């Protein structure tokens, strides 16, 4: 039993921490793929950056459209890494995570706060000019990613498993599955429409990049081996019951946390919404993919996750 405001703070701390890591990872993956395909297919490299901007919107409307690929890449890199004005930049998310952590610091441990604070302070010292160098950019973002991982590790190793912990993990889980679905929603139309016959290695690079963006390329290989069949990849990222970033796993995790939060009492409204969604995901499979029903289904999942967030905010935070 904790204060509603503290639960709210921990939930958002979990969401922002997860979002910061997602953004950092996708920036790294996008930059790598863009570099790989640049000489072969500039339009594709451009597509990748545009997709990333669709996954994490929040770029100022008046921003001059970057005409050149280099311009687009540089603007996206800056915007999504350290731009303090961009609501989806790694820096912004880390700052929000830290602000929330500061406002509920009595509910955390020193280890958690110090790791988060150090990671934030380190990124704070980066500036646009330094990050213009791709090698420096990679090393800075990788270091931030490591810092986030050690914060998550400190949460795992030092926090009491009370209601506060559950709200933190709930925020993390909901943000993760939500972002996975958004990524798929943005990327799938072009991926599915692409003609594999034309340029096979490029075709596979994009699917591989999708898996890496969801940090589950190795996990996929362990199930399906190195062969990247689109239908297998889809099956995996949507319905795999074990990989942490599949949609099915994510929805089940959200449900699990909500069940534990509402322990004892009747199932809460948010647990009911996400419970139905998790059940759908457990019983769906290949047929959706074959029938070409994936995109409407993803829209449905996004809507239900949104409803879950709204319901839990009302029930637990009184907002």
């Amino acid at each position, binding site marked *: *039993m*904790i*204060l*509603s*405001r*503290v*639960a709210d703070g921990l939930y958002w701390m979990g969401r922002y921490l997860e979002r910061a890591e997602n953004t950092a990872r996708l920036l790294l993956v996008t930059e790598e793929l863009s570099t790989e395909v640049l000489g072969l297919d500039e339009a594709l490299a451009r597509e990748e950056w545009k997709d990333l901007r669709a996954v994490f919107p929040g770029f100022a409307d008046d921003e001059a459209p970057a005409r050149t690929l280099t311009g687009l890449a540089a603007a996206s890199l800056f915007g999504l890494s350290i731009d303090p004005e961009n609501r989806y930049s790694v820096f912004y998310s880390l700052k929000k995570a830290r*602000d929330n952590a*500061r*406002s509920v*610091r*009595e509910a955390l441990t*020193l280890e958690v*706060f*110090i790791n988060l*604070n*150090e990671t934030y*302070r380190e990124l704070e010292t980066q500036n646009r000019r330094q990050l213009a160098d791709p090698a420096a950019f990679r090393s800075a973002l990788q270091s931030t990613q490591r810092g986030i991982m050690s914060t998550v590790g400190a949460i795992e190793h030092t926090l009491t498993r009370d*209601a506060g912990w559950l*709200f933190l993990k709930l925020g993390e889980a909901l943000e993760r599955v939500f972002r996975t679905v958004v990524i798929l929603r943005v990327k799938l139309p072009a991926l599915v429409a692409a003609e594999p016959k034309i340029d096979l290695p490029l075709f596979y690079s994009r699917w591989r990049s999708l898996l890496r963006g969801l940090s589950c390329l190795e996990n996929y290989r362990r199930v399906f081996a190195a062969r990247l069949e689109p239908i297998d990849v889809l099956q995996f990222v949507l319905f795999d019951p074990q990989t942490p970033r599949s949609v099915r796993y994510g929805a089940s995790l959200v449900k699990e946390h909500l069940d534990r*939060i509402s322990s004892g*009492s009747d199932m809460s409204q948010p647990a009911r919404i996400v419970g139905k969604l998790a059940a759908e995901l457990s019983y769906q499979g290949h047929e959706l993919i074959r029938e070409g029903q994936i995109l409407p289904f993803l829209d449905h999942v996004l809507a239900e996750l949104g409803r879950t967030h709204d319901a839990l905010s009302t029930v*637990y*935070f*009184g907002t």
Partner: protein
Amino acid sequence: MKWVAPRSGFDEVFDGSGEARAHYAALISILESFTKEDVERRERLQQLTLRNQGITFTVYGEKDGLERIFPFDFVPRIIPAPEWKSLQDGLVQRITTLNLFLADVYHEQKCLKDRVIPAEVVLSRKEYKRPLLGLMPARKIFTHVVGTDIIRNDRGEYLVLEDNCRVPSGVSYVLENRNLLSRVFPEFLGAYPVRPIKDYPTLLLETLRFVAPRRGQNPVVVILSPGIHNSAYFEHSFLAREMGVPLVEGRDLLVEGNHLFMRRTHGKRQVDVIYRRIDDDFLDPLAFRRDSLLGVPGLLNVYREGNVALANAPGAGVADDKSVYAYMPQLIKYYLGEDALLPQVPTYLGFKKDDFKYIAEHLDQLVVKTTGDAGGYGMLMGPFAAAKERETYLATMKKNPGNYIAQPLVELSTHPTHIGGRFEPRRVDLRPFILYGDRIRVLPGGLTRVALREGSYVVNSSQGGGSKDTWVLAPREG
């Protein structure tokens, strides 16, 4: 290691002839065994620790309420046992008097009828809360936590500069400074019998529980903070963690059926004691400032009914008013029949005609303060102000003379402070913390604030001050 000798006034470490005082000898020999590089390396470690642990305060008026590290100087201030003993006795005498005074002015007002202090000095203050007349807080305690500012004059005498009876802050830095120093310069502490201070949060919690209305049960204590943008937020959060109690904001609390509750994810829970770190005026929009978003509507009624205790009690601020301060020696005599153990700074009161005339004529020698403000805001340092500045200030003073007091500039004591690779004398003060619960406890230590700018007299953190670890030595055995 280079020591820069003090030019004037009393130095904590070196006497008039430049010799180190006996209780600093061991520290100096340890410091002199370090090379310049050692010290610099340790100082970098110290900065990093402060930054990473987020030991900060917030500066108002800057963008987003900028978080700043509270500068720390590693040369500790050492107070020998006999000196501390007399300080402690004087502080106990003062907090006892402050409480008797508060109980009196909110009840019989005997001290006003007996003309120990002019009635208008007390009753006209905005800190005097008329709606609380006749209300006695639990256990008759008004000021559970007091921080008294102490300075030393050029003879080394300890003088009281002011009492802080509302929401004195700084104790978190007292504790963090000790942690930091023992981590960065572990060699120091081993050489001295330094009295520990770590149990302050435990003692604070005991003090707060002592006034809980529901006795015999495990009372629910909370800290009420204005929130993350308050300059002392770090301390609020620190004390909540150290005491293991919830840190709440006004919006977390609600009044129902004349009881106070906090909103939780699964229902509400009754609150017994609030250690409030927000000013009286913001506590309850129904009772005081209507525009307060920080407070809890109806809180004062719950307090009135005795269903919640507030520490410090609302209305206690009148006791640390700078005009009331001038009458403390008389009040101590009146209530306790004793002479004041700690001297204080002579004070001229703006509302007295003769005093005001004196202030106006000697503005270039006086420090003028507004009675209500704290934190070094709104003051005039006469000796350092330009003539034009003094004129403007005087014109403002004339509009409301009762709002001002003036004191001669006291030459604060100096203490060697590590600045730019050398040990330079810088002015310091001392804020000990006193708890009033089942008995009165003085924390053996305190916040030594240091004016880091050369020649400066202003030690407030909002004005470029830093702090030092403060050691009170245990009495020698036998």
